[in-house]
């Protein structure tokens, strides 16, 4: 896989905050790594970094093969810009002076889109295997655990905005990035959602923006945290347990599930009607002993249902 191509395929997991992008990115990475492919998962915000360490503790003992193939990197755009400064200024003292100057720090913060642009440029370097890092390797697959919808779309659009609004070295970079992002053969977008009103609304909006504004369409749609009622192959009779069938406490729990399932089902149908992408249902795990066990189970369910797509 990927021997001939010069570029690593990039899978992007995007969607609303809290729907499980990071967990599923790791699960998908784990699935490929277990099969011996080298995978790099790229995250861009500080919180998952913590989660990742917890989630993957014990990986070496449990899957030595996968541990050797799964890599996680956290990209901080400030650091990339800082490295660029250090590269261009040979004198360490002068570089430090620039980096610590208020002028530089403030410009980095307020120059619109600069951080996003730096992030995308690094992502492209990794995908095109042109990393300046001598130890970097060629990955068979890149997975970008993208930031939540708003910031994600803004990041994608930034390359185009620089192209449109500003000139100079960043405009050239912006144009290159726009080309990089618009190759559907190399880039697969997987929106993740849960079956709740806000998340579904946002997913529909995200898919339509991707399509209209950026000419991108999702390769598949992941419905995470589904109830066993939705994940079940055959229809479950919701009338099973209604009416005067007893007054026990089980009734309250059954009612809660039925109420939630009615909403879940409606939202699922709405998604199917509005988004033209293969849906992939991932069930909610009731409990797990370790984060790694959760990832393993999710990897099985996710990897198998996505083989046709990726």
């Amino acid at each position: 896989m990927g021997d001939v191509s010069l570029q690593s395929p990039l899978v992007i997991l995007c969607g609303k905050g809290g729907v499980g992008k990071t967990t599923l990115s790791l699960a998908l990475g784990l699935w490929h790594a277990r099969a011996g492919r080298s995978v790099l998962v790229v995250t861009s915000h500080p919180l998952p970094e913590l989660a990742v360490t917890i989630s993957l503790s014990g990986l070496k003992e449990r899957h030595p093969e996968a541990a050797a193939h799964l890599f996680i990197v956290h990209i901080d755009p400030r650091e990339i810009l800082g490295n660029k400064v250090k590269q261009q200024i040979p004198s360490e003292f002068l570089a430090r002076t620039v980096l610590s100057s208020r002028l530089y720090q403030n410009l980095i913060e307020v120059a619109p889109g600069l951080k996003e642009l730096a992030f995308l440029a690094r992502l492209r370097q990794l995908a095109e295997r042109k990393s300046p890092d001598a130890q970097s390797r060629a990955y068979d697959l890149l997975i970008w655990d993208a930031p939540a919808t708003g910031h994600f779309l803004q990041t994608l659009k930034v390359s185009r905005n620089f192209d449109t609004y500003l000139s100079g070295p960043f405009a050239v970079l912006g144009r290159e990035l726009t080309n990089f992002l618009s190759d559907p053969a190399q880039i697969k977008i997987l929106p993740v959602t849960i079956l709740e009103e806000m998340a579904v609304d946002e997913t529909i909006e995200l898919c339509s923006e991707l399509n209209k504004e950026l000419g991108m369409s999702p390769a598949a749609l992941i419905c995470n945290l589904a109830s066993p009622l939705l994940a079940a192959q055959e229809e479950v009779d919701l009338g099973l347990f209604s009416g005067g069938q007893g007054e026990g406490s089980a009734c309250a729990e059954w009612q809660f599930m039925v109420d939630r399932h009615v909403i879940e089902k409606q939202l699922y149908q709405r998604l199917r009607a509005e988004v033209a992408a293969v849906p992939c249902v991932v069930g909610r795990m009731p409990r797990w002993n370790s984060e790694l066990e959760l990832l393993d189970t999710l990897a099985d369910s996710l990897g198998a249902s996505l083989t046709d797509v990726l």
Partner: protein
Amino acid sequence: MRIRIFVGTGGVGKTSVAAASGLKAALAGRKCLVLTIDPALRLRTTLRLDPGGIDQRVDLASLSAQGELWAGLLDAGSTLNRAVRLYGEPRQAETVLRHPVYHSLVQSLAGMQELMAIERIDQALADGFEDLFIDTAPSRHALEFLDKPEFFAQLVSIPLLRLVGRTYKWFEGSMFSRLGRKSLELYTKVEELLGAKLVRQVLDFYSIFRTIAEGYADRARRTSSLLHDPKTTTFTIVSTAFKAARDGDYFLGELDRRKFHVETLVVNRLWPGVGGSFGADVPPQAAGLIAWYRSVSEAHAQAWERVSAAFSARIPKLICLSELARDIDGLSALAQIAGQLASLDPIRPE
């Protein structure tokens, strides 16, 4: 006057908790404003929010409330446009609104949204609200809201920028002669690194934007000191059962570092457990599903116990809220959450 700021990662229900807290205070007789960033459509309808619109009063007649509940949307684009028109001279405002950097700036709304929150807090205080409930964008951006006023204030106070004129001509003609050698060297380096045109466009923009920004920076400093006063402002971290340990640590650390006071950790959306055993009349298929439900709710209960143990010494108030069977739609659902909050948190005399 009290300010409550709600932080948390996405999808944990910050907006609902913020709105319900506002409702609770309004029921207790206070004049409240809930400022929110991205509410679900139905919550938007309940709170009568529309983008670009002004703050709306929520009709609480059905709940016989003593106080008032108002809601506003933190819409960066329109707040910024309004601020430019309000604080700039007409010609200056037009130049700013047409400037390419301004377009990019408005496009990168994530940062601006938070910047504008500061602006809105100031306006709300002038409007005589007693309690402010502010919803923030998820994770990192939420904290930028607290950092940005400083950046902004610092930016406009840089001597270099004070010297920058309105046009490139003026900029090139007179600025360099007035700069010291060290500053000039530094500036040249930065310009080389980022591209001269980009830097100049940004500087040019901020020079025009300066009078607007200076007014902003003054208000930002004022607001910033209010946000640091624990008698006025407290922070609530909102999370869910399995994320609470991690989120709690992260946000507590980040807020402590900035010397903000965290008062409450809300563990939201716990599946209610009923317990007990079910009778023989439950069909097997239903029994399987109920057993699944119970294992989820038990796992939630255990997670809550672990979280309370971990944070009881570090955060004054720990609250858990049950998941509602239906999505948050309408005032009645908000009132249910407000009720849960009220039963856990008796109103203290001030």
